[in-house]
């Protein structure tokens, strides 16, 4: 099966098309979506295992020789990201069944999710820079639908901002690819890497590297390009927010990691220094935001910004510890952000508000929710047996090995701020006495919302405890990032 690596892209796409035929039949839509996501997840697990046992999977579409057709490449990093994406989608789709409401389901909610997953998986798997642009557009256009679907006033206002920012960044993406194409004359990512090392990265390539950082920085929300994120992400309902928070910014991070480890590796003193400074500033800006708000959604949204900074800081160190820390933290952050957004969705459902000052005393009525939230919060901050620990440990180790002592200390200090910000939610929402009477909620709905969130939290615990077992996968992913020749040989064989 040489087409195996395309299945996580084709299958969601196929089921999204099928769903277009059943607009009014909500039950059929739910069943088909569930089948589609489960089948795609199974194919991605097979792919993960194949990449582990047989090495990088690469294919050039249409049977053309390698630099001339569109190459699709699945190395360990992209296989891991694709699997995590589908895993999260599964839980968020199950959560949507009870939470999103029939009115939205009737207007192409599930097709939009599946089209977005198609785009995300495509962007993770492609080996062609212009094809990456196309997959970015696929996921962005589907995300425009998801952000505006429902048509409340807030959604309309924020979707305008979101679309405007993304249209501008997409135009900049095209311009940057045009610059790159006029310099190296190829679009295949492995071939670009070869061509750049032949000319040894003259000034113009460094300019293009910074332009790519701006483009992907807007998508992945680094400082100072994250300004659109807090407002836009707060507008859509919780399952959509969970999808966006867990997946969309990570595509930008992946694109930065890929281009900065494959293309622009000959003048790291300049490009990676900028990346490092910006990621430290991103962490600081995120920390300020996370402490400033008394709103559940905003606190977790600013935690996305912090995580973006931490991951890119790890990647910018360009040593083994930093890079594998970044990969560990990337997967951890996707899982934990999905879990946290689903949990605060449950809190918002119970209390009917997202304002922390108006809630309290939930521990007496909803103890399991409280304890699982506490575990997820500790996982996010990086308390040792849980999932966030090993990634951040390796990132800090990488920073110290590279001699960036102060930046490493800032990353460590940011953990305290993260812990403080999420513990504030715990203290205000779960401790003390209930300040206002809780609105009447349905126990059955509550249980159905809790189930996917709890399983996701359990998964993050397993991720933390099973670090030793995951290590060979992470080592494979890091090797490809640190030695571009492995990637190039796999594509241009």
């Amino acid at each position, binding site marked *: *099966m*040489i*087409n195996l690596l*395309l299945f996580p892209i*084709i299958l969601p*796409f*196929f089921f999204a*098309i*099928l769903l*277009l*035929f059943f*607009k009014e039949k909500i039950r059929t839509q739910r069943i088909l979506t569930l089948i589609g996501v489960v089948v795609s997840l199974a194919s991605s697990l097979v792919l993960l295992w194949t990449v582990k046992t047989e090495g990088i999977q690469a*294919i*050039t*579409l*249409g*049977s053309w020789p390698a630099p001339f057709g569109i190459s*699709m490449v699945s190395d360990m990093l992209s296989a891991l990201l694709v699997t995590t994406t589908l895993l999260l989608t599964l839980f968020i789709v199950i959560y949507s069944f009870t939470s999103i409401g029939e009115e939205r389901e009737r207007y192409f909610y599930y097709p939009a999710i599946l089209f977005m997953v198609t785009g995300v998986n495509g962007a993770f798997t492609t080996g062609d820079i212009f094809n990456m642009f196309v997959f970015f557009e696929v996921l962005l256009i589907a995300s425009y639908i998801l952000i505006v679907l429902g048509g409340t006033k807030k959604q309309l206002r924020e979707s305008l901002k979101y679309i405007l920012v993304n249209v501008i960044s997409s135009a900049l993406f095209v311009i940057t690819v045009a610059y790159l194409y006029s310099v190296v004359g190829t679009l295949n990512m492995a071939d670009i890497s070869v061509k750049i090392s032949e000319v040894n990265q003259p000034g113009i390539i460094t300019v293009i590297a910074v332009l790519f950082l701006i483009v992907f920085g807007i998508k992945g929300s680094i400082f100072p390009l994250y300004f659109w994120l807090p407002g836009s992400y707060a507008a859509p309902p919780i399952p959509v927010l969970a999808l966006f928070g867990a997946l969309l910014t990570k595509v930008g991070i992946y694109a930065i990691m890929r281009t900065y480890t494959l293309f622009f590796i000959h003048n790291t003193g300049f490009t990676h220094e900028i990346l490092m400074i910006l990621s430290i500033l991103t962490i600081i800006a995120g920390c300020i935001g996370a402490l400033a708000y008394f709103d559940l959604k905003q606190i977790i949204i600013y935690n996305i910004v912090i995580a973006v900074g931490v991951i890119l800081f790890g990647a910018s160190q360009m040593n083994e510890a930093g890079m594998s820390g970044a990969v560990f933290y990337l997967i951890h952050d996707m899982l934990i952000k999905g879990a946290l957004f689903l949990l605060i969705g449950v809190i918002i459902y119970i209390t009917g508000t997202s304002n922390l000052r108006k809630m309290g005393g939930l521990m007496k009525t909803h103890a399991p929710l409280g304890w699982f939230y506490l575990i997820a919060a500790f996982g996010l901050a990086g308390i040792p047996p849980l999932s966030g620990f090993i990634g951040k440990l390796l990132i800090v180790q990488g920073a110290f090995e590279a001699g960036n002592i102060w930046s490493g200390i800032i990353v460590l200090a940011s953990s305290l701020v993260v812990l403080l910000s999420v513990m504030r939610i715990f203290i205000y929402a779960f401790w003390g006495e209930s300040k206002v009477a809780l609105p009447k909620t349905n126990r059955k709905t509550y249980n159905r919302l809790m189930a996917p969130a709890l399983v996701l939290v359990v998964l993050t615990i397993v991720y933390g405890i099973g670090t030793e077992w995951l290590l060979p996968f992470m080592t494979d992913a890091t090797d490809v990032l640190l030695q571009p020749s492995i990637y190039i040989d796999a594509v241009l064989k």
Partner: protein
Amino acid sequence: MKTNDVILQTTTKLVFFIIFLFSIHIFFAGHYTPGGGFVGGLLTTGAIILLLLAFDLKTVQKALPFNFTIMTGIGLLLALGTASGSIFFNVPFFTHAFDDFTLPLFGVTSLHTAMIFDAGVFLVVVGSAITIIQSIGGDS
């Protein structure tokens, strides 16, 4: 006063078919000359828009009783199906095939699977463009 559109409507009835036939020509010519599924689809859309201008939305929907959302779906399925056909032969995705066939009316004709993909593009373009126009001009 009710306006009399008899000249516009009569001309439209004639011109519609000329534009439609031209769009089919453009669609089939795409492999060797400028044209293809996208332009062909837009031309067909143009022909339908001319009908919408000369008549009203209800009349056109009665004359062309298609669900254009479904048409988009069918187009996508055609395109994906053409590309995935290669999976069953275990060659890279999107590998096309072609051969010469002797057809009763045309003689020896070279047929290429890219044509089916283009037909998918054609249907998607027509389906989505008409859906946009219907939903903007529809509710009044």
